[in-house]
């Protein structure tokens, strides 16, 4: 019977969904998400519920088998499907991958900023080190999360042009975050700190900018303001979600310099999300390569750039232009990222891979340790896996 259904479905277009089926899915989704929403919106949750222990106290954040799904009307999109990595204190971790592979969703999960109610952290944990204690962000309710956001973890977004509220003055927007997390400060203190922050990110006319509206500033200036908002409370971790994508190249370099300098100044870690390998090479200490919601390779920047192992990483490296080398046509990885609904249980990259081996027909490859820090999910390194065991 089910066999019959299966063939019936594949006979039609793979993307076809009957109205009845769509209704069933959306009803089911609502059931799942409303239960999660209720849990998230609870009041007076005891701290013990989300208190946890860091596996390694030198890490700021540990993602442990994180699953973040989007419950859409066409099916469940597994945007992040079992991601595990950590961000050590004072280090910069670069997350790379092409569009739609779950880089941003991972970072938004850490901030609990997924588009609710469709986007939900389904399982796994995100351990956040607060110094004297550690919280599991995946279990935290809304009210506790508000204390963390902007204070312990802050975020710089991709689009500086639209990331600032157009109807409020710059000063008010920076003041707000400082005031929120330092409620005892006086107005004068808050303003002084704002001016100080604006100067720190390299805005010369800080008093003037304080009174300006976002539309009176250029994109680079707005991104500086965003950075000053992100750094205003000395966070332990700064998530930079493609901070330079929308800016021109000279401003890009300035912004990256700024970020690097400020990171050392306030001794925090950076999670740098980008698809620009040049930026990663320049900034990152560790690199995480994601593909279709999973990590395919991670290691130190040195390892990834000198010895890229997963065919996807190799492809990414090959598709970036290199100075002083003439090529007729820049390499591009064939095919595109697979549909994230109904992912098959084999290596997601198999259909685009040019280096398949026989074992690739099997299940999704496990994590294989090439060195202590260099991990890759690919059957081509199966021999190392055996040694590992």
């Amino acid at each position, binding site marked *: 019977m089910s066999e019959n259904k299966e063939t019936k479905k594949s006979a039609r277009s793979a993307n076809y969904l009957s109205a009845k089926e769509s209704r069933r899915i959306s009803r089911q989704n*609502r059931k799942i998400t*409303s239960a999660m929403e209720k849990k998230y919106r609870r009041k007076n949750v005891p701290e013990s519920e989300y208190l946890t222990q860091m596996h390694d106290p030198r890490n700021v954040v540990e993602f442990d088998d994180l699953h973040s799904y989007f419950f859409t009307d066409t099916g469940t999109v597994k945007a992040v499907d079992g991601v595990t990595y950590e961000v050590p204190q004072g280090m910069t971790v670069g997350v790379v991958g092409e569009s739609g592979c779950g880089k941003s969703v991972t970072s938004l999960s850490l*901030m609990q*900023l997924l*588009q609710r*109610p469709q986007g939900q952290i389904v399982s796994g944990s995100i351990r956040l080190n607060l110094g004297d204690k550690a919280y599991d962000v995946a279990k935290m309710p*809304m009210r506790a999360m*508000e*204390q*963390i*956001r*902007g*204070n312990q973890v*802050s*975020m710089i*977004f991709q*689009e500086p042009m*639209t*990331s*600032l*509220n*157009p*109807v*409020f003055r710059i000063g008010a927007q920076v003041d*707000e*975050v400082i005031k*929120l*997390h330092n409620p005892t400060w006086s107005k004068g203190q808050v303003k002084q700190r704002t001016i100080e922050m604006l100067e720190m990110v390299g805005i010369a006319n800080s008093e003037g900018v304080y009174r300006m*509206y976002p*539309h009176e500033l250029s994109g680079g200036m707005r991104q500086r303001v*965003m950075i000053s*908002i992100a750094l205003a409370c000395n966070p332990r971790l700064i998530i930079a979600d493609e901070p330079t994508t929308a800016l021109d190249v000279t401003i890009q370099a300035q912004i990256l310099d700024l970020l690097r300098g400020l990171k050392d100044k306030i001794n925090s870690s950076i999670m740098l999300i980008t698809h620009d390998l040049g930026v990663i090479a320049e900034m990152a200490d560790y690199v995480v390569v994601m593909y279709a919601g999973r990590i395919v390779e991670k290691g130190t920047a040195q390892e990834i750039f000198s010895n890229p192992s997963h065919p996807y990483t190799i492809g990414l490296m090959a598709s970036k232009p290199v100075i002083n080398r003439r090529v007729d046509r820049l390499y591009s990885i064939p095919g595109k990222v697979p549909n994230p609904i109904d992912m098959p249980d084999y290596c997601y990259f198999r259909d685009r891979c040019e280096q398949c081996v026989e074992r690739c027909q099997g299940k999704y490859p496990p994590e294989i340790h090439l060195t202590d820090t260099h991990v890759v999910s690919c059957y081509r390194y199966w021999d190392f896996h055996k040694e590992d065991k």
Partner: protein
Amino acid sequence: MSKYIIKRLLICVMILFFVTLIIYSIMRCIPTSFVESIARERAALPGGKSYQEWLAQLNAAYGMDKGILEGYFTNWLPSAVRADFGDSWFFNVPVVEKFNDVIWNSFTLSCISFVLEILIAIPLGIVAASKQYSRADYAITVFALIGISLPTFFFATILKYVFSIKLGWLDLFGQVGRYYEQLDTWGKILDVGRHYIMPIITLVFISIGSLMRYTRTNMLEVLNADYIRTARAKGVKESRVINYHAFRNTMIPLVTIIGGTLPSLFSGALITETLFQIEGIGWTSYQAMIAGDIPFSMFYMTFSAILTLLGTLIADILYAVVDPRVRVA
């Protein structure tokens, strides 16, 4: 800013001139003629002059013997500029006096329902948007759709049936009760208030839907904006995100709508006023129109045109108040 406002006001005067010219032409062209019906009435009386004679005499008396353009430029415009709108033909009193008699009934009615509409529709729209696809959202949307699609007369009739016929709480129609004259001042106010309850409910219920839908759509758009995510990333409380960060941005398109409804405060509600027999401007202007009463209709429509122009001007100024991006330096 003042330069801008002066420029806009001058444009308004130009528009007003053409609007009144067009309205005057239309009024002269419509088939209902007050003069003709009076002439026919007089001619039917025994022993009088003939219809043709009456018509010629009345046309001369009412200034209808001139052409449309001539009539406009020699009769209507010069006196209108001097704020003299003449006497109403149908009501036999000065136009302004008649207008002043009835407008306040309409104004009270629409003003109260307008305020109620805003107070109900905007919060409902915000709740519906911030809890998108929840039960509350569906309930509000259904409620709004019922309001939009129910015809006024139907809803008013249901109200009348329930509250005055079945429950007997309110009077079926009219503006004052039977013992109005014997009441003291407070009693009179309360009595009129009681008679306004059902018309106001009708007006609010049928107009709430569109404003609520509009608020919801705008709020949804704003809630998906990047700066709302920034606000959340700053650690701002959810209630403040919605009521402060998002609301200020939702206000921008709403003020244009609200500014545009200014003329409707004075234009009355024809159907509701008729159903509840409230002598308001909607009802009065309708009577003037079907009788072919040119002075009254001209005054009423010029007044509406002025309000419409002022409404858009006020909306534009309010726009600059809520949105710093359009402020004129």
